[in-house]
C-alpha cells in the first residue's frame, strides 16, 4: 500500500522582514516544513507495513523542495513536488486527490491541525487521514540528514479539469496591521 503524506511549506517566521513603506512582509529564509506535517510523516511511517511505500508530497513552487529533506531524513521513500501557484483549500484538495490517484496511493495523510489550529479543511475535502495530535515525530540522525540532502525530488504533473484548478477563495488585499 502506498501512503501519501501532504507536507505544507510554511514561511520561516524567524526570518521575516517587514517593509512599512511597501506595506508588505518579505520572507527571507527558505520555507520550512509545517511541524504538524512532521507528525503526519511520523504517523505514516509508523503505519507502514513491510512492502509499503511512504511518499511525501509538497504542493508549491520550485524552492519548496527543501521542505522534503526532513521527510526523507525521517524515512520517507519518495518525495514528490507538485508545482502549483499558492492555492486555496479547494484546489489543494483536488490536486492532492489527483496526485494520489496518479501515484497509486490508497491512504492520504495530513497533519492533525492546520496553521489555524483546527482539523484541516484540506484533510476533510480530500478524504484523508489526520495524524493524531500527540504524536512525537522522530528526530533523524546526522547520517540520515546527509543522505536526505542528496535524494532526488520527483516532479509531478496532474491532469485536472480546468474547473478544479480555479481557486474559489481569492486574496483581495493584504496590508500591515
Amino acid at each position, binding site marked *: 500500500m502506498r501512503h501519501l503524506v501532504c507536507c505544507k511549506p510554511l514561511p520561516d517566521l524567524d526570518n521575516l522582514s517587514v517593509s512599512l513603506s511597501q506595506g508588505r512582509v518579505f520572507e527571507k529564509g527558505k520555507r520550512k516544513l509545517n511541524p504538524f506535517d512532521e507528525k503526519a510523516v511520523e504517523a505514516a511511517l509508523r503505519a507502514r507495513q513491510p512492502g509499503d511505500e511512504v511518499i511525501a508530497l509538497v504542493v508549491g513552487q520550485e524552492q519548496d523542495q527543501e521542505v522534503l529533506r526532513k521527510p526523507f531524513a525521517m524515512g520517507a521513500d519518495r518525495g514528490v513536488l507538485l508545482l502549483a501557484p499558492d492555492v486555496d483549500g479547494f484546489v489543494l484538495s483536488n490536486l492532492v486527490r489527483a496526485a494520489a490517484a496518479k501515484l497509486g496511493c490508497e491512504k492520504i495523510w495530513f497533519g492533525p491541525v492546520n496553521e489555524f489550529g483546527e482539523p484541516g479543511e484540506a*484533510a*476533510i475535502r480530500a478524504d484523508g487521514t489526520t495524524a493524531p495530535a500527540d504524536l512525537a515525530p522522530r528526530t533523524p540522525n546526522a547520517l540520515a540528514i546527509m543522505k536526505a540532502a542528496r535524494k532526488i525530488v520527483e516532479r509531478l504533473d496532474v491532469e485536472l479539469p*480546468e474547473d478544479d484548478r480555479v481557486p474559489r477563495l481569492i*486574496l483581495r488585499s493584504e496590508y500591515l496591521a
Partner: protein
Amino acid sequence: MSWIDLVGGEQATPEWRDIAVYAWLDEGKISVPSRKLIARARALADQLGCYLKVIGAEVKGPGVSASFVEDPLAFVEREKPEILLFDDTPRPVPADLSAYPPVVAARLAQKLRTGLGYAHEIDLDVSQRLLVMRSRAYGGKMIREYVCPAARPQMCLVETALLPDA
C-alpha cells in the same frame, strides 16, 4: 450537478440570496458561539437587506427568519443561501465529528465545490455582495482579506471567540 459553472461564467446569480448560519446545540440549548454568530449575521443581513436563516438547530428569536433542522446539503440546494457561516470556536474536538462545524463546513464546501474561508472578522462589501473574510497572518503583523467572488455559497469559518457577546 452542472449548476456550478465557473470557467468563463459567474455563478453568483441572483437566485442565491440570504444569509444562513450553522448552529449547534450545547446540552440542549443553542450554544453561545452560535448565538454570537447569529447576532453578527443579523447585522450583516440588515446591511444586505435579506433574511437570516439558521440550519442545524431550531432557533426562534427576533431577527431569525427561519430555522431548519435537516441535512445541510439539502438545505443549501433548496434555499440557496448566498452566505453560509460556521463557527470555529477552539474547543476540545468531540468524538462525534458529524456535527462539528469545521468538519461539516469542509465536507459541504467540497460537495458544493465552493471555497471555505477562515476569518477572525467578517465584513460585507455591499456593492459587490461579497463577504470579506479578514484574518491575521505572520503572528499578527499582517491582515489578509479573502473573498469568494464567483462560487456560491460563500462559506466561512468565523472565529467566534473574537465576536462581541450576544
